[in-house]
């Protein structure tokens, strides 16, 4: 158990982590976009409260957040029994449980950038869309989203990265079952704890390289339209 190269267990952990991060990011995109949109339109005194509420998962140390989730999911409590019945299997120590925890934990990373972007030009665009007879959902999907592409890419990148690095929450409610709940961050931590520095360095490097590649790809896909303007091409500035 002192692999010269990155071990099979680590590879498995890496794959699991990428899956978790991808699922979480997609789910959060589905949750975050309408949430941020509603919030950016909400003219009530409660808006600030809700915005702060969304920030709160950041404030609690992840392990403590994980602890409270553990209590929530616990079969010893009614909440956990109800959730398990709803889902058909216990949430603790399952991939589903991890996804739920990650979604809660990474919520601010998705919602905040979107909210900032929507607040800045969302009102103007939504009005312009409504003034052409477009219903709100169409305004969101066909007008606001295309105009907010950079913010969306940035939000997804943050969420993805944060889910990759997530540790405390996963440790608490997921433990470290290889192939099921052992994500890279935990594998990495365990290498360090077990004084397997070589394996730790290698895994950290692989993680960083893979993530950098993915993030660069995302940026490239989501680059703003104006980046390819005639002028920039003229001046030889690369897109």
């Amino acid at each position, binding site marked *: 158990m002192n692999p010269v190269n990155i071990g099979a267990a680590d590879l498995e952990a890496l794959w699991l982590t990428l899956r978790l991060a991808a699922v979480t990011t997609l789910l959060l995109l589905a949750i975050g976009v309408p949430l941020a949109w509603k919030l950016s339109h909400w003219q009530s005194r409660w808006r600030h409260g809700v915005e702060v509420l969304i920030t709160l998962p950041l404030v609690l140390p992840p392990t403590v957040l994980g602890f409270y989730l553990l209590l929530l*999911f616990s079969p010893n409590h009614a909440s*956990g029994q109800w959730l398990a019945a709803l889902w058909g299997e216990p949430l*603790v120590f399952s991939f589903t449980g991890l996804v739920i925890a990650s979604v809660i934990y990474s919520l601010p990373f998705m919602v905040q950038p979107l909210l900032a972007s929507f607040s800045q030009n969302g009102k103007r665009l939504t009005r312009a869309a409504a003034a052409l007879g477009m219903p709100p959902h169409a305004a969101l999907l066909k007008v606001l989203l295309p105009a907010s592409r950079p913010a969306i890419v940035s939000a997804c990148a943050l969420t993805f990265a944060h889910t990759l690095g997530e540790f405390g929450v996963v*440790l*608490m409610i997921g433990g470290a079952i290889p192939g099921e709940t052992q994500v890279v961050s935990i594998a990495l931590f*365990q290498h360090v*704890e*077990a*004084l397997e520095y070589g394996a730790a360095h290698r895994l950290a490097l692989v993680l960083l390289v893979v993530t950098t590649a993915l993030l660069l790809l995302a940026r490239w896909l989501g680059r703003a339209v104006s980046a390819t303007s005639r002028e920039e091409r003229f001046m030889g500035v690369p897109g």
Partner: protein
Amino acid sequence: ATDCQLRVAAAASFRPALEALLPEFEATAQCKVQINSGSSGVLYQQALHGAPFDLFLSADRERPELLERQDKIVPGSRRTYALGLLALWLPDSAEKTSETIRGWSDTIVIADPKVAPFGVAARQVLQSLGLWDGKRAQLARAHNAGQAYLMLDAGHGQLGFVAASQMVAAGRDNYWLLPQDLYQPIEQQLVVLRQSRNADRAQALADYLLSGAVRARLAELGYGRAAGEGL
């Protein structure tokens, strides 16, 4: 049978030892064992709230006792499988006596006595030597013994209390194995969890870990011999 699978929740500090011991068991018992290691406190919480563990190897005796009291274990399965031994990390040149501690004016790294068993033991050592109050200001508290080792290894301190098993695992010899009369030995206990779906096999693994051969191996790995069989 290949479908036999056990999940062991083991204190992070015991993981290297466990990894060394398991292959033999897996071969003879025809059973795959998954290690889920972490801080004993976290593992306890998880076991309490429905984690699918079969066997819990704690780094202390407090948490297994708590589980027993909460009726979460197979009755009678709580046993001491090893004694954690405290070692003092020393500069290479230093003498392996209490005088070294007494005369030390620099940082002393210890695990946090509030949460870590090795921290409690370290405090007991200092108290026995009558140094606890005098040296308090010099103490740098790491979260647990593992982190205390990382600290010392990275050079953030030249003197500190760590687990002997870590020094052995890392092949270092710049340590003084503290006399066992200076602190209460750290009893590391195991329990078979009630929610286990494979209690027989789990018990078999527990028995294997408590067997004489394993105890001898553990001694080589830096663990002490339990004072008596069982409790």
